[in-house]
């Protein structure tokens, strides 16, 4: 990649710009793949020009420490969910029924309210507005959209469940509790849309033998959603 870019440094300005944008797109996707597959591309990109951040396409975002970190973590996830459902309603998938549209519009509004609530609550401590990357989602396909929705909702539930014990303020803990059950209602509903009247609304794939939902630590959640956001989110100090 770098070789290609360097071979272009002597070319015309316009050409260089086009190439670097394309390279960056490729880089971002490769980086996403690399993390998911435990591969190699990141180390190849540490040197020189690949480190340059192009505005609006991906920044380094640090969530912060302690309860502020937890709130920013929630704010980050809600931003992704809100952006996802906004897109779902803006470009409905083929064959979306009225009933499905009502449900998905409700969920969109809930996620936007969550997002705006965290933004307001965090004030100057809030992280920036993230740039989502939904390139991997085919928004024209019902299966793809509801599949992604299921992943986002289950992930949201697992994230809030895993973050609960990191929260120090009882007020914030209660707030997280008020939101996570709504996310679980979403998850149940999306799963039922995918496989109506089956056990899937709380299927064995997500609920264990003790009847427990998942609880997942921030680092694992951030790794799981990495491919859906252009910014590089770090949350090593969340809750600490």
């Amino acid at each position: 990649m770098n070789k290609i870019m360097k071979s272009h440094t002597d070319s015309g300005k316009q050409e260089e710009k086009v190439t670097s944008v394309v390279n960056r797109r490729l880089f971002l996707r490769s980086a996403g793949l690399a993390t998911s597959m435990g591969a190699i591309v990141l180390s190849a990109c540490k040197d020189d020009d690949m480190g340059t951040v192009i505005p609006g396409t991906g920044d380094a975002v640090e969530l912060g420490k302690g309860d502020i970190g937890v709130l920013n973590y929630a704010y980050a996830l809600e931003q992704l969910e809100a952006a996802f459902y906004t897109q779902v309603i803006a470009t409905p998938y083929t064959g979306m029924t009225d009933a499905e549209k009502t449900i998905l519009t409700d969920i969109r509004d809930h996620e936007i309210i969550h997002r705006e609530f965290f933004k307001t609550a965090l004030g100057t401590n809030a992280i920036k507005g993230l740039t989502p990357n939904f390139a991997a989602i085919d928004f024209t396909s019902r299966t793809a959209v509801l599949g992604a929705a299921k992943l986002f909702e289950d992930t949201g539930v697992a994230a809030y469940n895993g973050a609960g014990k990191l929260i120090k303020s009882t007020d914030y803990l209660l707030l997280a509790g008020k939101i996570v059950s709504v996310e679980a209602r979403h998850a149940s509903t999306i799963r039922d849309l995918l496989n109506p009247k089956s056990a899937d609304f709380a299927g064995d794939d997500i609920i264990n033998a003790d009847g427990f939902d998942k609880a997942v630590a921030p680092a694992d959640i951030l790794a799981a959603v990495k491919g859906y956001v252009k910014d590089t989110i770090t949350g090593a100090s969340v809750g600490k």
Partner: protein
Amino acid sequence: MDIFKIIDDFQKIDGDAAGRLQYATRRHFMNRIGSKVASVAIPSIFATVVNKAFAQSAAAVDVLNYALTLEYLEDEFYKAGNAAANLIPASDKAIFTTIGKHETAHVAFLVKALGTAAIKKPTFDLTYKGAFADVLTNYKTFVAVSAALEDTGVRAYKGQAGVLIADPQILEYALQVHSVEARHAAIARRLFAVVNSSAATKAWITGKEALIAAVQPIYDGEDNMTQGGVNLKGLASKSDAAVTEAFDEPLTKAAVLAIAGPFIKA
């Protein structure tokens, strides 16, 4: 240098990447979670951890016995419903079998974890002193009581989160059960909407709207518009209905026990 060739090549790679990214991310996520759960999934290990924590917190024992009371009630309710002939239509069996399975598991977990501190199962009156006299013969009543019990469970667990803040591992278990109750509540409410042709009833709670008047206290306070000290009216130009749906509210132990009281004979 052929710029168009390069872009073309990139697009080819991009096309592959999109599909692989989705697959790989999902697989990665499930693997990670899967291994986590697998490493702690044996009930006896759970129980040991909880027992250790109990030694340090009488408050936790109290909360879990309170939870156990509600789980005993739910478990008995679904056992009776699932066993009743001609109550649950075949199309909906999978739903109630699944809910029942989870409630049985919750009881088993709590009993094991509490050990000798576990309360005995109360004697229940599933008719709620006659208010739901046909609960095991009329599917509409059964679905309404199911949704009411699940919505109560969600509020009850939520109300105890703060009490458990000093017992992080037990708090996490409680949260893991809490969201399962919410999944149950959502599906039960959607079934309620179907069997009653009530389009206004959604998986989420709008305002303080009760499914049936007899259980209004389960929904009191759900119309709260103020979160974290901020009145959210008009936030992002969303309706009051949406704002109240976006947040579930807690109930105190006293309020829950008052609601559950008519189910408990002794």
